[in-house]
């Protein structure tokens, strides 16, 4: 036995239960990361209620609703891909993962149009247009850009992770006997989804 093989042996210590626990802990930290911003949101919303309502009128509810539907459906396809791999239906699982990625891409394209419309109207941090507005509105848009921006970053990371999982599934590394990584990717994707479920009403539906 060469020592190189010993290392491999040393690495592959499989504990699915432990991996799931680790993933849930990581999701906790993500929730708390956004939690800090939700605290900031609630404090400023409490202080500037009228301005927040006024500013929210600038956001396009249709875009928001559309994106919510897209993201919710993508969570469904993600869950289906895991169910498929559990039943050893590799092709179906790969198909569902790709659909999830496509939905995520749609979400980001929408987001792009939404943001560029805002920026086109001169509403972005530090712009003259925005600085003429009241403090409450400045804070609303500041939070809007930071929170949806960070959420968008998570969508992009999620896409990268799912794409990596798709490759693994095609190669057979993720299979009906060992799919804990795909499951973890799914958990992450549901987190991205659930954060959006809170962002949507807080920014789009408070008018």
């Amino acid at each position, binding site marked *: 036995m060469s*020592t190189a093989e010993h*290392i491999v042996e040393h690495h592959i210590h499989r504990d699915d239960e432990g991996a799931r626990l680790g993933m849930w802990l990581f999701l906790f930290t993500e929730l708390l990361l956004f939690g800090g911003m939700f605290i900031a949101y609630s404090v400023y919303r409490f202080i500037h209620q009228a301005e927040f309502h006024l500013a929210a009128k600038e956001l396009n509810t249709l875009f928001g609703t559309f994106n919510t539907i897209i993201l919710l459906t993508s969570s469904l396809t993600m869950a289906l891909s895991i169910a498929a791999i559990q039943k050893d239906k590799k092709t179906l699982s790969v198909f569902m993962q790709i659909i999830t990625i496509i939905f995520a891409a749609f979400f980001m394209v929408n987001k792009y149009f939404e943001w560029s419309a805002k920026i086109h109207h001169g509403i972005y941090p530090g712009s003259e247009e925005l600085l003429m507005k009241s403090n409450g509105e400045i804070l609303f848009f500041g939070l809007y850009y930071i929170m949806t921006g960070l959420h968008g970053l998570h969508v992009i990371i999620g896409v990268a992770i799912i794409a990596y999982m798709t490759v693994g599934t095609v190669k057979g590394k993720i299979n009906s006997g060992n799919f804990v990584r795909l499951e973890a990717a799914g958990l992450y994707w549901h987190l991205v989804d659930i954060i959006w479920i809170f962002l949507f009403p807080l920014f789009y539906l408070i008018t």
Partner: protein
Amino acid sequence: MTAHSSGVNSVSYLEYQGRHKGLKGWIFSTDHKRIGILYLISMLTFFAVGVTFGFLMRLELISPGTTIMDPQTYNSIFTLHGIIMIFLFIIPGLPAVFGNFFLPIMIGAKDVSFPRLNLLSWWLFAIGGLLAIVSVFLPGGPADTGWTFYIPYSVRSGTNVIPALLAAFILGFSSILTGLNFITTVHRLRTKGMGWFKMPLFIWSLYATAWIQVLATPIVGITLLLVVLERLMGFGIFDPALGGDPVLYQHLFWIYSHPAVYIMILPAMGVISEIIPVFARRTIFGYKFIAFSSLAIALFGSLVWAHHMFTVGMSGAAMFIFSLLTFLVAIPSAVKVFNWVATLYKGSIYIEPPLLFALAFIFLFSIGGFTGLMQGALSVNMHIHDTSFIVAHFHYVMFGGTGFGIFAAMHYWWPKMFGRKYKIKPAKIAFWFLFVGFNVLYFPMFVMGWLGMPRRYFDYLPEYTPYHRISTIGSWILITGLIIMFYNLYSALRRGEKTSEENIWGGETLEWKAKTPPPLENFDELPEVSEAPYEYKINDFVEEKETEEVH
């Protein structure tokens, strides 16, 4: 598998040759012991830098007015001293170094749950540390905001605040990953027979610490990130000019940074709980109370953050509640102190260097903890807020507590980690220098703080001169002690007596049943545990010593 294990385990982790050789064999190793050593080396390097900054600050304060540096340099130096000592020395000091090395061994496991994630944590730590150092040399000059990065100055300051913030953010991420790894390891990898109440107390304290790391660090992460965004683009979240609230920043900052204080102190308390029973040859008094008090500290410690902000203008009710909660944290801390002292009572005490440091911990931590209570009282707080009384208090807890805890851990586990014994006499001499130097350095700060000497001031009125002089002399004694101690430990590695004795001090926990130094997979066969730790009645070591005494 067994054949593999014996092959892997024929040499110690220090000699083991894996896929990578030489330096790469260390910086790419996923072995928890090697990662622990990596942390040890990097932590001590940063500690040396931090001590140097502290020494320079004390030298500047030896007499009023400009002595060796201008005010701007002084501001940068106390900022860097804080950032380095907190984020790069005390926080990783015990969990990342000794936690990594001993957590798996003490619960009878081969490694942590996620070894590769563990290596990633160290890399993030190294990158964060380098970024903090680099920020010193970039144009613009090192950050001068204090380690707290208070708004609005941290947005206005022209210095390199962003690299310092990003460094803290990355270090926080490293800390989260370590915490996540430890929680999973404790849940999943305890060896056969090791129920929750058979875990060594160091493991309990690491477990409580890991929860704080996971739950509190993300908040400061996002807060520091918001300050970065504020500086870059002016979102206005904290900037009062745009409607933001600087006090909200302080809340979010302390929601993490107060629990972080317990990230620093809890593992040290765990180390003391290990050392005291071993050198008193006595079962620890009140095992469950010590274990649960760690969790209680983690819980209450998360709810007291606003006691750092009593002067910012909160509502009276809020101040009252935070003051009350602050007093409550003292209870589990005191439970531990009483239990340690009760363990020593009627024990067969052997005064070895680890015990000396542990005793100093109890003494210094008690002073630090008690003065902490004084500050928790609202009326007293108004008087001593932002004075050097506070500086003395947190150095008594952080350095006198955690720092001495780290030194105790080093002297306790050094022979196990490297298979070399250090010389006892220089270690004891170093201890007395450290203990005396520490008190001479920090005690005068209590006095002058009480008399009104503000903290973080570069200059002072002439009436404070004697206190500052004494304090600066103390820093020289302390540094002499540090030099003796580190030289002694270092020369042990080079020339120390080799030992393969498994149970060096007569401990009852699992690390003393592993080979010295431990092999790659720690144990040839995973040990089985049938009794609680620290059962000294049936320890051979006790009988041996007792028969010796009879003869």
